[in-house]
């Protein structure tokens, strides 16, 4: 007969799931940038995600990141950051810490979690609870968790999602003294001081209704909160002959929707949102994406157009707005699964003033190791969102051990 202790271990093991990886990624830039002479950046990330199912209806989820890098974009102190609001990337951060409660048609998740809205892949105008980490690249980003309560009701083909986020989490922007902050030529010789951020108080709310029909899906959504991408408030100090830049996050209200319709030859996906703001001087605009998808044997193709319409211009040009920056672009992605272990991917964005193309080859070795090598090429005018990063073309190599 199995003793009680062994039985307990077996039961615990059945309720506990984990996954994680250790990844080292080296990026080589052939060119220096005006504000960054570094040519090689190495980043190390350890990510662990785990869940424990206490009962069939209650699960505790945790996700934890530990990082360091060669470029001092990651903080070098031993504090654990539970909110991910710092200017530098924290060395230790809580990516997820939440409880999921599931009863019948209702699922609630409370705590730090990742929330994704939208259907398109190129750009997601409606994905408002998903701030990103742009610190080490604006063309290769990761999502940040948010502290929120989310209740989802699912009945048949209809899902209603209600979200309350009491603590604001901004997207993390590139540091001012590093290459992914493209300073205008007029700023040459000016002492620029990073004065941090003024985070808005108050909560963010969102609601989304998604309907799945026979051969189509669509959703409508509403968001009331703050823009997670900053505008910059510039202050000149005659005493120190410097300009201080402070990040600010205007109010934002969104009305949006998305749809996916599989047709006989390809799938059409669309997503659109209209953004208004009660903050004086904040921009008001619409973003939309239309994309086509198709799989042909081992190839997958996604291509489309991301557009924007500005209905009220921003009072200040000092904004970090990659969502707007990738608008008015033709965007495409092609992926090839060579075999069970190897794959290729090509990604591109083409605008009138700039373009970006990335090529990646990835190979799995055994059950745990993966190597991914890539080359990205960025070209364009200094006045264009992509073009301003034209000195940031790079080659990269990432080695990942998954466990």
């Amino acid at each position, binding site marked *: 007969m199995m003793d009680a202790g062994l039985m307990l271990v077996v039961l615990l093991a059945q309720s506990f*799931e*984990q*996954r*994680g*990886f250790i990844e080292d990624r080296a990026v080589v830039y052939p060119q220096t940038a005006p504000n960054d002479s570094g040519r090689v950046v190495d980043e190390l990330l350890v990510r662990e*995600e*785990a*869940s424990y199912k206490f009962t069939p209806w209650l*699960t505790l*989820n945790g996700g934890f990141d530990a990082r360091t890098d060669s470029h001092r974009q990651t903080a070098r102190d031993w504090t654990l950051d539970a909110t991910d609001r710092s200017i530098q990337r924290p060395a230790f951060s809580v990516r997820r810490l939440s409880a*999921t409660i*599931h009863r*019948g*048609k209702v*699922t609630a998740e409370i705590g730090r979690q*990742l*929330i*994704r809205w939208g259907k398109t892949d190129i750009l997601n105008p409606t994905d408002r609870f*998903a701030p990103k980490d742009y610190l080490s690249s604006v063309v290769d980003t990761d*999502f940040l968790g948010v502290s929120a309560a989310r209740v*989802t009701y*699912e009945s048949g083909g209809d*899902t209603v999602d209600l979200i309350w986020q009491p603590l604001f989490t901004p997207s993390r922007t590139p540091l001012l003294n590093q290459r992914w902050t493209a300073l205008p030529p007029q700023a040459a010789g000016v002492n620029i001081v990073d004065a941090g951020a003024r985070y808005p108080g108050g909560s963010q709310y969102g609601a989304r209704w998604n309907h*799945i029909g*026979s*051969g189509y*899906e669509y959703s409508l959504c509403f968001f009331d909160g703050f823009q997670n991408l900053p505008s910059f408030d510039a202050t000149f100090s005659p005493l120190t002959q410097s300009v201080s830049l402070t990040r600010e996050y205007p109010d934002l209200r969104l009305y949006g929707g998305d749809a*996916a319709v*599989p*047709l*006989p*030859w*390809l*799938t059409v996906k669309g997503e659109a949102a209209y953004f208004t703001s009660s903050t004086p001087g904040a921009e008001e605009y619409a973003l939309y994406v239309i994309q086509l*998808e*198709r*799989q042909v*044997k*081992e190839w*997958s193709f996604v291509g489309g157009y991301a557009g924007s319409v500005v209905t009220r211009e921003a009072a200040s040009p000092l904004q970090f707005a990659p969502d707007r920056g990738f608008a008015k672009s033709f965007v495409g992605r092609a992926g090839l*699964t060579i*075999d*069970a*272990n190897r794959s290729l991917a090509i990604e591109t964005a083409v605008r009138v003033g700039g373009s970006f193309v990335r090529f990646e080859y990835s190979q*799995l070795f055994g*059950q*745990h190791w*993966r190597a991914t090598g890539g080359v990205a090429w960025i070209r364009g005018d200094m006045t264009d969102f992509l073009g301003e990063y034209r000195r940031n073309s790079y080659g990269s190599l990432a080695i*990942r051990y*998954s*466990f």
Partner: protein
Amino acid sequence: MNRILFLAALAALPALAQDTRDPRQIILEVQKRQHSDSQRYEGTLEVTSQGNQVATKRWVYQRIGSFGNSKAILRFTAPAEVKGVGLLIVNHPDRASDQWMWRPAIGRDQRIALQDRSTRFFGTDFSFEDLEERDVDQYNYKLLSDEGGMWKIESRPRKSSQYEYSYFWIKKDNYTFVRIEAYNKKGLVRTIDYKNYEQIKGIWTARLTEVYDVTRKSHTTLKYEKLEYNLPMKDDDFTLQALRRDL
């Protein structure tokens, strides 16, 4: 009609009074003997490429309902980098299934469009369509031969499918599938062999399936472990929310 995976588990009761010259009745009897209200197994897949490189994957498969009125969730447990990736399959009696794939790394689910179902599923030699379960009435059948203790039946889908037709070899003594050859317009696409049959809760069940992709010259073996039938399961655990819920 069950495409591939479900065909691995077939019943073997004595032949009932029926017209064994009617191929639809034969398939109906196969379904009847295979019937279970739910199923769960842990699958180990070995994918061997043309160059003899072997990749091992594992998944946990759970199904509620049966033949054309069922839902299934398949979730990878290995290799580590795909742990948590899931596929929800909602089968319908009168049309092709709905399928959604969940990738925890990006936190998004993706509907698998009908025209994309011929694509290989996560580097294995199964296509997405092979993972769905179709009712007997979604095909037309023709009995081609009745010899050597086996029936050879041609099956042509009435609804959209990557396959033009398939040949089934079914053992007469226990109504179990032995082999399937699936053809498209250009010719033979896949062969599936069912092996190592055992009776589990009175249902003859293949413990090994071998899929051979003729075009790519690669093959996948799927071993069924900890296979159980008629476990208590809830409908709520086979929804999009359920797909997203687990790690």
